[in-house]
C-alpha cells in the first residue's frame, strides 16, 4: 500500500489500530492481534458475508455487524468479545453443529479444523439437537480426480465455489438446492479437474472437501511442517512440506503475496512421492579394482579433488536446474577457470494460469532454478555439451538423472564425478560418486522465473551419509585449495553474493520467508 493512502484509527478490543482506509475490521483486527472467528472470509477470495460467524459489536450501532465486510471508520470502537457478539457466534456454531456429524475420530481435518477450533473456544459443550432429531445424511461424492466431497460435514461457506469461479475462472462447483437441503454440487459432464482445483481442499475449513491422496494417511498433529519452495516449475510457489516420522506425506501452499498468494497447483502439490524414494546413494563411492565401493567423505573428496586438479581447468559441469543456487555456484567454483556449465529443462508447451491471481501459473518450464543456473553462467545446451564431452577431461554431474544420455557419450570423457541423489546405470562408470540431499533434506535457495531468490528449509533427514551438495562441493573447493570449507548454507550464500555480481546486495537473512528479487545485473538468459 502506498505510504500516502489515508489512514484510519479505530479501537479494537481496547487497543488502538491504524490501518489504510478501506481495510475491513477483520483485517484490521489481525493487526491488533485479535483473531475474529470466521469461515467464509478468505483474503484470497471475494467477500461473501454468509457464514455470519464474524459478528462483532460496534459501539453506536444497534445490530451486530460482520467484520469481514465492514470497513473501518475513524473513531470506531469494536468489541469482539462483548457478550451479545459472543452469544451470536455461539449461536452460529450451534447451528453449524446440528447437522454436522461427530466425525472427528474418522475425519482427516481433525487437528486442523476451524470448526473444532472455534467450538472449543466459543461453542457449547452440549448438544440441544440430538437425540431428539437425526442429522441430515448424504453419501460421499467423488468430485474427482483428487477431491472427495463429504456433504454431511459441509458448512456451506462457499469458499470452494468462489475459488473455482473467481480465482480459477472455471465455475465447476455450485451451490445446489435451497435451505438446509443445500449442498455443493457439480454437473456430471465435468470433474473437478482444473489444474489448480486442489486448493479447495486447503480452503475448506472443515473436512468436507478432502484429498483422496491424503485420505486417512496421517493425523494433523503428527505432522511436522517446514517451509520450502515447490520444484514443479519455475513459478517458485511457496510451500510447506509436511512429514510424519520423516516421510513426506503432504505438500501445501504457504502464503506469499508476491508469488503465489495462497495457492499452489495440483502438479506441484501431488509430486512429492519422489522425496521418499528408498533407492538413494547412501555413501560416497570411489572406484577400486574396477568397481565402485563405499568410502568415507574424506577419501571420496580427496580422490575427486585430485581428478579435478589434474584436469587443467578442463571441467564440464552437467547440472540440473533443480539443484540449489549454492550448489550450482560451488560447482562452478570447483570447475575452475575454464568452467563450461550446461543444463536442460523439460519444457511443456502449455502453461496453466490461475487467472484470478496476477502472473501466477504452472509454467511450461518444469524446474525451480532455471534462472539461478542462467545467472550463474550455465547455458541451456545440455545435448550439445554431452556430445562435446570427449573434448574435456572431467565431467562433474550435479543432480542430473542423465535420462536418455548414451553410455558411449559419457564414456567419452576420461573421468566422471557424479554428485547426485540416485545413481543411474549410465553413471556406474563414474570415478567418484558423492551422495547429496534433496530439496526436502537441506537448506538452500532457488531463483524463480521472476528473479526472486527464495529460501527453502530442511524438512526431513537425508539417508545414510548423504550431505547437502553445497557442503560436498564446499569440501571439494577447499580440497582444491580455493577456500575454506563451508559450515552452513548461509556461508555458501554469503560467498555467492560476494563473488557473483548479479547477487550483490542480497543477504541470507534478508531473504526472509518471502524472498528478494535479483538486481538488474543478472545476465539475461533464455527463460520461459
Amino acid at each position: 500500500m502506498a505510504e500516502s493512502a489515508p489512514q484510519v484509527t479505530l479501537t479494537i478490543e481496547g487497543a488502538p489500530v491504524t490501518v489504510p482506509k478501506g481495510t475491513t475490521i477483520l483485517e484490521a483486527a489481525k493487526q491488533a492481534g485479535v483473531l475474529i472467528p470466521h469461515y467464509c472470509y478468505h483474503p484470497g477470495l471475494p467477500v461473501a458475508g454468509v457464514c455470519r460467524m464474524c459478528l462483532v459489536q460496534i459501539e453506536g450501532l444497534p445490530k451486530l455487524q460482520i467484520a469481514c465486510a465492514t470497513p473501518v471508520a475513524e473513531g470506531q470502537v469494536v468489541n469482539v468479545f462483548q457478550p451479545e457478539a459472543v452469544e451470536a457466534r455461539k449461536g452460529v456454531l450451534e447451528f453449524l453443529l446440528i447437522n454436522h456429524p461427530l466425525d472427528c475420530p474418522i475425519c482427516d481435518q481433525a487437528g486442523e479444523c476451524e470448526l473444532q477450533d472455534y467450538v472449543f473456544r466459543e461453542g457449547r459443550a452440549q448438544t440441544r439437537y440430538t437425540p431428539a432429531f437425526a442429522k441430515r445424511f448424504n453419501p460421499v461424492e467423488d468430485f474427482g480426480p483428487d477431491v472427495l466431497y463429504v456433504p454431511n460435514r459441509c458448512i456451506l461457506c462457499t469458499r470452494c465455489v468462489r475459488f473455482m469461479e473467481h480465482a480459477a475462472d472455471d465455475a465447476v462447483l455450485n451451490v445446489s438446492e435451497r435451505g438446509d437441503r443445500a449442498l455443493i454440487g457439480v454437473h456430471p459432464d465435468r470433474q473437478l479437474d482444473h489444474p489448480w482445483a486442489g486448493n479447495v481442499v486447503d480452503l475448506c475449513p472443515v473436512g468436507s472437501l478432502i484429498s483422496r491422496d491424503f485420505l486417512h494417511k496421517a493425523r494433523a498433529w503428527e505432522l511436522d511442517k517446514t517451509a520450502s519452495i515447490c520444484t514443479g516449475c519455475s513459478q517458485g510457489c511457496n510451500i510447506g512440506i509436511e512429514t510424519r516420522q520423516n516421510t513426506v506425506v503432504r505438500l501445501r501452499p504457504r502464503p506469499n503475496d508476491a508469488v503465489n498468494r495462497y495457492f499452489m497447483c495440483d502438479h506441484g502439490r501431488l509430486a512429492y512421492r519422489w522425496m521418499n524414494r528408498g533407492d538413494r546413494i547412501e555413501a560416497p563411492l570411489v572406484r577400486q579394482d574396477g568397481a565402485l565401493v563405499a568410502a568415507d567423505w574424506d577419501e571420496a573428496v580427496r580422490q575427486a579433488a585430485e581428478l579435478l586438479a589434474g584436469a587443467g581447468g578442463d571441467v564440464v559441469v552437467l547440472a540440473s536446474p533443480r539443484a540449489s543456487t549454492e550448489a550450482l555456484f560451488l560447482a562452478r567454483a570447483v570447475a575452475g577457470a575454464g568452467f563450461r556449465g550446461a543444463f536442460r529443462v523439460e519444457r511443456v508447451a502449455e502453461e496453466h494460469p490461475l487467472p484470478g491471481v496476477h502472473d501466477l501459473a504452472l509454467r511450461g518450464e518444469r524446474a525451480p532454478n532455471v534462472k539461478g543456473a542462467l545467472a550463474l553462467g550455465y547455458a541451456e545446451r545440455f545435448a550439445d555439451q554431452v556430445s562435446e564431452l570427449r573434448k574435456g577431461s572431467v565431467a562433474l554431474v550435479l543432480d542430473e538423472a542423465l535420462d536418455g544420455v548414451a553410455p558411449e557419450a559419457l564414456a567419452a570423457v576420461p573421468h566422471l564425478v557424479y554428485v547426485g541423489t540416485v545413481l543411474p546405470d549410465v553413471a556406474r562408470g563414474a570415478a567418484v560418486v558423492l551422495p547429496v540431499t534433496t530439496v526436502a533434506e537441506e537448506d538452500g535457495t532457488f531463483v524463480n522465473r521472476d528473479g526472486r531468490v527464495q529460501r527453502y528449509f530442511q524438512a526431513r533427514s537425508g539417508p545414510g551419509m548423504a550431505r547437502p551438495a553445497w557442503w560436498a562441493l564446499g569440501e571439494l573447493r577447499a580440497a582444491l585449495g580455493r577456500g575454506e570449507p563451508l559450515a552452513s548454507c548461509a556461508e555458501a550464500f554469503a560467498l555467492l553474493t560476494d563473488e557473483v555480481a548479479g547477487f550483490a546486495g542480497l543477504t541470507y537473512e534478508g531473504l526472509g520467508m518471502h524472498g528478494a528479487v535479483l538486481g538488474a545485473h543478472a545476465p539475461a538468459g533464455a527463460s520461459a
Partner: protein
Amino acid sequence: MGYPHRPHPKETVVLSQYFGDADARTYAGWVKRGGYAALQRALGMKPGEVVDLVKASGLRGRGGAGFPTGMKWSFMPREKTKPHYLCCNADESEPGTFKDREIMRWTPHALLEGCAIAMHAIQAEVGYIYIRGEFTEPIRIMQAALDEAHREGVLGANALGSGRPLDIWIHRGAGAYICGEETALMNSIEGRRGNPRIRPPFPAQAGVFGLPTTVNNVETLTSVPAIVTQGAEWYQKLSLSNPKSAGTKLFSVCGHVARPGNYEVTMGFPLKDLVYDLAGLRPGRTLKACQPGGSSVPILNREESEACLLDYEGCVAQGTMLGSGGLIVFDDTADMVYQIMRLARFYAHESCAQCTQCREGTGWTVRILERILSGKGAMSDLDLLLDVGEQMTGKTICVLSDSCAVPVVSGIRKFRGEFEAYITGARKPVLAVA
C-alpha cells in the same frame, strides 16, 4: 375493490376502482378511464420534480418495508453517467398477500403507467417487471398490455412522443419467495440464484448489473399516477390518523373470514372494522388472532387486533407491523401451534441457504414444532424455540430468518397455553413423527 365482491361503503376506492372490469384491461379502455394522462403530464416535468412530488405525497413502499418512495427515488444519482434501471417487484409471495396479482390482472396499464412515470423520475430507460413464475394469468395479461403499449407508442423508443425511450420487459420468476427481497430480485434478473446481497453497496449505487437501480412494489408504483394527476396534498389527506402514513392501501384479507378479498381503505383504518364489518367472520365464530401484514409480522391477539389502527405507526404501537397488508385472520377454531408450524415449514422451504442461522434455524424450528405437535415435546422446547428465535434475529443478510422467528416468538408469548396443551398431553397429537 376486492373482486369478486361489491365495494363496501367504508372503502376508499382508488387503486381497485376497476377490479372486475375486464374493459379496463385494454389500452382503449384504460385511456377511456383517464389512463396515461398522468404519464403525459409527468413526461412534461423534470425528473427531479416528479421525485419531489412523490416525496411530498408521503407515499411509502407497499411491499412490506414501508420505506418512503420519493426518498428512495432520490437516492439515485442525480447526474446520469451510466444506465439506470427500474425493477418492479411483482414477486408477491408473502403468505396472506394477493393484491399485486389483482392490480396486474385488472389494471395492467395502471402498473405500466406507474412504472413509466417512475422510470422518468429516476432517469431509467429500461425497466423489468419481475413477476413470480406461478402468476401465469397476470403474466399473460401484463404481456398483452405491454404489447398494446408498444403498438400505441406509449412505450418504446419515443415514449408518448416525448423523445425519451422507455422500455419495459417482463422477467418471469421460477418459484422462490426470497426473490421478493429486492437484492435477491436483482440477482434473479441477472440470471443468478436468488440470493440477497450484503449491503453496501446499495441498489441506487450498484444494483442490477452493478448499475444504479430502484426496486419498487407493484402497489407502490400503481399509486403514483393518481398522485401526479391529483397532487401530493390530495394523497396526504387520504389518511385517517397519522400524517406519516398517507394514501390508501389494499388489504388482502384472508383466512377465517366470510368474504375474503382485497379491501382498499385509507391509512389509519381500524383493523376491527376491516375484520368484523367488511370481511366478516364466519357465522358463530369469534376472533382469536390475526397477522395484519402477512405471515412475517407479530401475531396479534384479539384485544390487540381490536385496538389496532392500520397504518405504519399504528401497527407498531400494537407491537406488530403493517408489512404487505396481507391480513391473515385466525378464528377460535384455529390451531395456533399447527399454523405456526406450517408457517415455519414455509420459511424453511424458502430459505436461500446463505446464512447459517436461517439455513439451519428454520429447519430446526420446524422439527421442534413438529415434535410438540406429535406429543413428544417438552416444556424446555418452548425456551429452546425462543432461544433459537433470538439467534435467528438481527444477524443475517436479509430478514427471512427474523420472519421465521417472529410468528414463533409472538405465538409462544400470546398463545403459550396452546403449546403447553400439546406438551402436557391435554391436547392429542395431530402429527405422527418418527
